[in-house]
């Protein structure tokens, strides 16, 4: 398959364009997704190809248009709703949590809601507390929804195509700081399966489980640690729900040490779920250190650059956490 380097933004767009060329029932709906091209330029050029009826600018009515998309999906269409900043998802919680996520189950399996909700999350842009959150764990907590958070252009394209194909409602988390990152992406359409993690770096000494932008921070940290003779294994979850337990457990069994790197706030973040799944399993006995989490501080995201950096995970914080873990007292099960 011929491939070339494109940005994450272009990869997301390419998946949408491909799906819309293949299937008349796929459409994109959201605020400023038309001539403006989306707040982050993801849909730039699409309205010119597909017209205003399939690349649909909406009024500022997240509940209304996400509810509409859920209804269109119930009727068999394949809507992609864009929420301009993931913080605004609070406006459509009823539509996502009580409607889209529940219809199949409460109707006894007699309905499907094949909708994708794309949205950029995360901090690091100086946008402060209402435009920087990482709220994806909320949806991991809702049976009936799937949550994906690709970290590379390759996975963004492949996972978005899988999400559009999927008969369930899928939340597709992008990150503002990923849009300009480049990577190898095949020109042809392909699918990355939902629910499959990838081991992006092999190592023997410690397992780092991560997703999204944090995957890149983990890789940077791994390189720095490697210079010091520590070889981390990095597991990029890619999908948060359903979580790929097997990939996590097999890596932990190999290294005996677990560090989770996540951008959302630490308390009740999805990293807690990763740790629980390990310690509740037989793989617990493979651990020779207590697991650690590098996560956002339990505060809203502050505006000031230094304050913002202070509360977010960084590659340096990951390095520190791994070193501290290695220096910690060994467990009795070793």
């Amino acid at each position: 398959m011929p491939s070339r380097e494109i940005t994450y933004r272009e990869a997301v767009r390419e998946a949408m364009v491909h799906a819309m060329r293949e299937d008349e029932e796929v459409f994109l709906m959201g605020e400023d997704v038309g001539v403006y091209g989306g707040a982050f330029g993801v849909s730039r050029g699409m309205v010119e190809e597909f017209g205003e009826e399939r690349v649909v600018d909406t009024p500022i009515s997240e509940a209304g248009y996400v509810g509409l998309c859920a209804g269109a999906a119930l009727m068999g269409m394949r809507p992609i709703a864009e929420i301009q900043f993931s913080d605004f998802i609070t406006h459509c919680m009823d539509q996502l949590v009580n409607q889209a996520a529940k219809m199949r189950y409460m109707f006894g399996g007699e309905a499907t809601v094949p909708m994708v909700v794309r949205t950029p999350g995360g901090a690091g842009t100086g946008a402060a507390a209402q435009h920087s959150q990482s709220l994806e764990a909320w949806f991991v907590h809702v049976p009936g929804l799937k949550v994906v958070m690709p970290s590379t252009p390759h996975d963004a394209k492949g996972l978005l195509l899988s999400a559009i194909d999927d008969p369930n409602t899928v939340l597709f988390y992008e990150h503002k700081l990923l849009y300009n990152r480049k990577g190898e992406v095949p020109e042809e359409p392909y699918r990355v399966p939902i629910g499959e993690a990838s081991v992006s770096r092999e190592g023997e000494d410690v397992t780092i489980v991560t997703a999204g932008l944090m995957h890149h921070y983990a890789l940077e940290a791994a390189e720095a640690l490697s210079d010091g003779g520590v070889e981390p294994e990095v597991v990029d979850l890619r999908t948060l729900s359903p979580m790929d337990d097997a990939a996590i457990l097999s890596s932990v069994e190999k290294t005996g040490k677990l560090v989770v790197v996540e951008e959302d706030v630490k308390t009740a973040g999805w990293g807690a779920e990763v740790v629980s799944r390990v310690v509740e399993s037989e793989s617990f006995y493979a651990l020779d250190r207590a697991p650690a989490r590098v996560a956002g501080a339990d505060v809203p995201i502050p505006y000031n650059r230094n304050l913002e950096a202070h509360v977010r995970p960084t590659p340096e914080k990951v390095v520190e956490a791994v070193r501290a873990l290695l220096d910690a007292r060994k467990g009795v099960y070793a």
Partner: protein
Amino acid sequence: MQDNRDRVELLRQMLLSRYFDEKVNDLYAEGKVHGTAHFYVGQESVAVGAIAALKEGDVITSTHRGHGHAIAFGLDVDRMAAELLGKAAGYCHGKGGSMHIADVGAGMLGANGIVGGSMGIACGAGWAFKRRNQDNAALCFFGEGAANEGIFHETLNLAAIWKLPVIFLCENNQYGMSMSVKKATAIENISDRAVAYGMPGVTADGTDLDEVHEATQKALERARAGEGPTLLEAVTYRYLGHSKSDANLYRTREEIQTWRKRDPIQRFAVKLEEEGLLKENEWRELDEEAKQRIEEAFEKAQQQPEPEPESALEDVYA
């Protein structure tokens, strides 16, 4: 106006709806049903009159007070009774209960436990019809309580700007649980709000089946002609409490009696007699038949097996 045989059928549907909910109310009183339900008794003419105006391929969305909508749409009372009793043979295989009865394949897109929860879904159905160039419409039932939810504003606006074939049918039954519409809104009619969205607003006497029917028909013509949505208000009244736990502390016995005197079933039956469409004693026969049909549905449902416990873990994902 419907043809003569259809008119008698509409009376039959109202009676089925009435006896279904009275039966459920009794079963709750006897402690024989688990959970809760909301009764449509007194409002039957709205669902039956409006749904009779639909054609093949049209869809409805319903509310927490949805048994009457389901019956009028043609759902099978046996499977509805089975669902109320939580049986595997119910529409939702015992997973939905009263507030989630649906038959999506047939176009009944679901009762909904969230006030205003189905308004987005109705717009989605309208969107699908428009995109697919189908000559169909979505009939969205909601209560006057939902008219004060944010989703009301968002969906009416979206439907209006995109001229979606959606009929927003507000059943103004005077109370959102205990909250009187007079205290909850500062306007006379819910339909007055239509002007804010640039769509027609019509208030009909909800106890008069024909008036509801004609108003719905007009709204449907407009929707099918590509002219967009209508906000229809049917002024009606629920005789029974909000749900099984209601002690009716917020209204008087006299008020309920006043409305009962305008009973929609009674009114329609008398009308059919005057039109010569009901023979002597036929109303009584229909009444008895409907009562029997509902008794039979619940008796059959009682005999149905419970769902397998493991089925609780199925159908989360497709």
